[in-house]
């Protein structure tokens, strides 16, 4: 089965950043995303999942490499300075590349 290389961009951030993050993704032409409710600890303290607003979310989007570059650039400039978040990119292989 032929698979096609794509980039999986992952953002872990405070749940309050949900709306701005999804808007940012949309404005970059991302066609879909998957969102996980998570708990976490990082440089900016613990985020126990006891109150939704103060917990974390993880958002994953699969995009072509070129889009990934632009998206990461944008996240670095406009998202990371404001919110408790980390961003990373993984190489994946997808079926049906036309979807992404």
């Amino acid at each position, binding site marked *: 089965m032929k698979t096609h290389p794509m980039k999986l961009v992952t953002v872990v951030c*405070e749940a*309050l*950043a949900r709306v*701005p993050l999804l808007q940012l993704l949309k404005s970059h032409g991302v066609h879909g995303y998957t969102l996980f*409710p998570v708990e976490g600890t990082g440089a*900016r*303290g*613990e985020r*126990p*999942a*006891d*109150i*939704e*607003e*103060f*917990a974390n979310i993880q958002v994953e989007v699969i995009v072509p490499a070129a889009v990934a570059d632009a998206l990461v650039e944008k996240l670095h400039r*406009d998202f990371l*300075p*404001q*919110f408790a978040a980390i961003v990373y990119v993984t190489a994946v292989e997808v079926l049906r590349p036309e979807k992404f």
Partner: protein
Amino acid sequence: MDWWEGVLANLASPPIVFFALGVLSVLLRTDLRLPEPVYTALATYLLMAIGFKGGVALAESGWSQVWRPGLAAVLLGCCIPLWCYPVLRRLVRLSPVDAAAVAAHYGSVSAVTFVAAVNYLNELRVPYEPHASAFLAVMESPAIVVGVLLGRLTQPQAAAEGGLPWRQVLHEALLGRSVFLLLGALAAGAICGARGEEATRGFFVAPFQGVLTLFLFEMGMVAARRLGELRRVGLRLIAFGLVMPMVHGAVGVVAGHFAGLSPGGAFLMGVLAASASYIAAPAAMRLSLPQANPTLYLTAVLAVTFPFNVTLGLPLYYQLARWWLGGLP
């Protein structure tokens, strides 16, 4: 009943005992945890119930009795951040944007503290204006708007450098989840009237105090999980979080009295003024003044002011109302 008796009566009421138990469970690392959906469900229930009952009362009492204390509540909400800001700048030595954010929290209100206060009055069988939750509803947003204004005026580049545009700030302040739910439930109560209250009494009234008890148990854990951050916020902010509520409580009782409220109602206005928001304000600040440090305001509000208010604060504000206004048992 003197202050100490009042404190003991409050400390021995189920919600407060379970609040302490929640704190203890975190300190002892017992691994107890109530999942987030339970928190959301209980918080929604409490806001719905209190708003609905207030709305039913509102429809009965009519607007004429409500606008004066309502206006007082809005004004208090607007003014508190204005005097908190210089205190936070000079005495607590916060940066401008942090001072603005913390000021917004203390001008806004905590619904759970209000509910605990209503419960306290009910326990003592003290009468109060049953539509008082309307004041809670209108007092949540103004301070948030003023706080953002303060933050952006004092740090003009902040507005540019991120943070929401004003339209969204207002949306966040006026249509945050708790404001909307309270206002909506008030309207619902006004529409449904006594008949609707009758029909839902078995859900909104009978188990109310028990649900509050369970919720405060969870709040004890939530607050205690932030205790570890206390050393990050400094003694000055901790002192602020203890002293300012007392000042605001006194101001609120007086304001409530002059706005025409009964002693019970004036006490509730005092509690509102003394309380600090830990849901609506943090959410709004995070999005509107993202440069402000959330550890500062969350810790001050959740780990200092909230526990103080529900344990020692309520009986204190009650005594103020009793001494100054009389007519209270």
